C-alpha cells in the first residue's frame, strides 16, 4: 500500500470519527461559530469607514495625489473662468456695435444696399 492509499484510508476512518463528537462539543463548536459570525458582522461595518479612509488618504497631506490634483483643479477652473470672461467681452463688443447701428440715423436697409456700399467706398477715397 503506497502513501496515497494509506492517506485515503486513514482519511475515511477519520471522517467516520467526526460523526461521533458528542453533543457538548458540538454545542461548543456551534457557539464558537456563532460568535465568529457576529464578529464578522461587526468587522464588516467599518467597510464604510475604510472607504472613507481611502478617500481621506487620497485627500490627505501625505499623498502625492492631492499635490497634483489640487493645482490641476485650480488651473482648469482658472482656464474656464478666463474663457468665460473672454466670451463675455466679445459679446459686449458685439452688443455695442449692434446698439450703435440700431441707434443710428440711417435705416438698416441702407447698410444692405449695394449702392450705398459703393458710395461709402468712393467717398472714403
Amino acid at each position, binding site marked *: *500500500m503506497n*502513501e496515497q*492509499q*494509506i*492517506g*485515503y*484510508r*486513514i*482519511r475515511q*476512518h*477519520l471522517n*467516520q*470519527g*467526526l460523526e*461521533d*463528537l*458528542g453533543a*457538548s*462539543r458540538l454545542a*461548543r*463548536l456551534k457557539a*464558537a*461559530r456563532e*460568535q*465568529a*459570525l457576529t*464578529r*464578522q*458582522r461587526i*468587522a*464588516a461595518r467599518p*467597510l464604510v469607514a475604510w472607504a472613507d479612509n481611502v478617500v481621506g488618504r487620497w485627500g490627505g497631506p501625505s499623498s502625492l495625489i492631492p499635490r497634483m490634483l489640487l493645482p490641476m483643479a485650480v488651473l482648469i477652473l482658472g482656464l474656464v473662468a478666463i474663457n468665460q470672461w473672454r466670451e463675455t467681452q466679445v459679446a459686449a463688443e458685439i452688443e455695442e456695435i449692434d446698439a450703435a447701428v440700431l441707434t443710428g440715423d440711417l435705416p438698416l436697409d441702407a447698410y444692405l444696399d449695394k449702392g450705398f456700399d459703393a458710395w461709402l467706398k468712393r467717398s472714403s477715397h
Partner: protein
Amino acid sequence: MIPSDDRIHCGTGRQKEASLASPNELSDFLVSIERRAYKQALFAVRVEENALDIVQDAMLKLAEKYGMKPAEELPMLFQRILQNTIRDFYRRQKVRSMWVTLFSSLSSARNDEESDPLETLGTAAESKGTAGPVESLEQTQVIEYIEKALQQLPPRQRQAFLLRYWEELDVAETAAIMGCSQGSVKTHCSRAAHTLAEALRAKGIQL
C-alpha cells in the same frame, strides 16, 4: 519558520475571479470545517478544552480579519490561522510548563486535573453514545487507534499528513501553510504514512 497569519498571502489559483464571502458562506464554511479543525487541534494539544479554545480562537481570527475575503480563500486562510494558533498554544504551554515544573519541585502534592484518567474515560464513554453492533465497535476501536497513532506522530509529520490527506491540500499549499519547502512536506508525509501504517499493523489493523 511558520509565517504569522498577519502576513498571509494566499498565492493559490483559488483567489481568481472570486467574490467576497457573505455571512452565509462563512457560516457554511465554518460548519464544514469545525469538526476536523477540532480534531486537528485535539491531536496536537491532546486536551479537549484547549482544542475547543484553539478552534474558537481560529474562527474568531478568521471572521475578524478575513471575514470579507473571497470564499475560495477561506480554507487556506483558516488552516494557516489554525496551525498558527496551535503553535502559539505550544509556546504558551512551554512557558507555563517551565513555571509548573519549578513550582512542583517545591510542592509535591500537585493536582493535575487535566490528565485525570477518570475524566478521560468519562468523555470517551460519552462520545461513543449508544452501543452499536460488533462492527460498529470495531470501527470505533480502529478510529481510536488511528487517532492515537496520529497523536503520537511528531508534530510536523502530523501537520503535513493531515493537511495533505485530510484537508486535501496540495503539496504547495501545505508547504505555504507550514512555512517549509515542498520537499520537506513530501518527506514529512511519507514518514508519517509509513509510521502510521506500521503502528496500525502492530495492532493487527489492516487499513
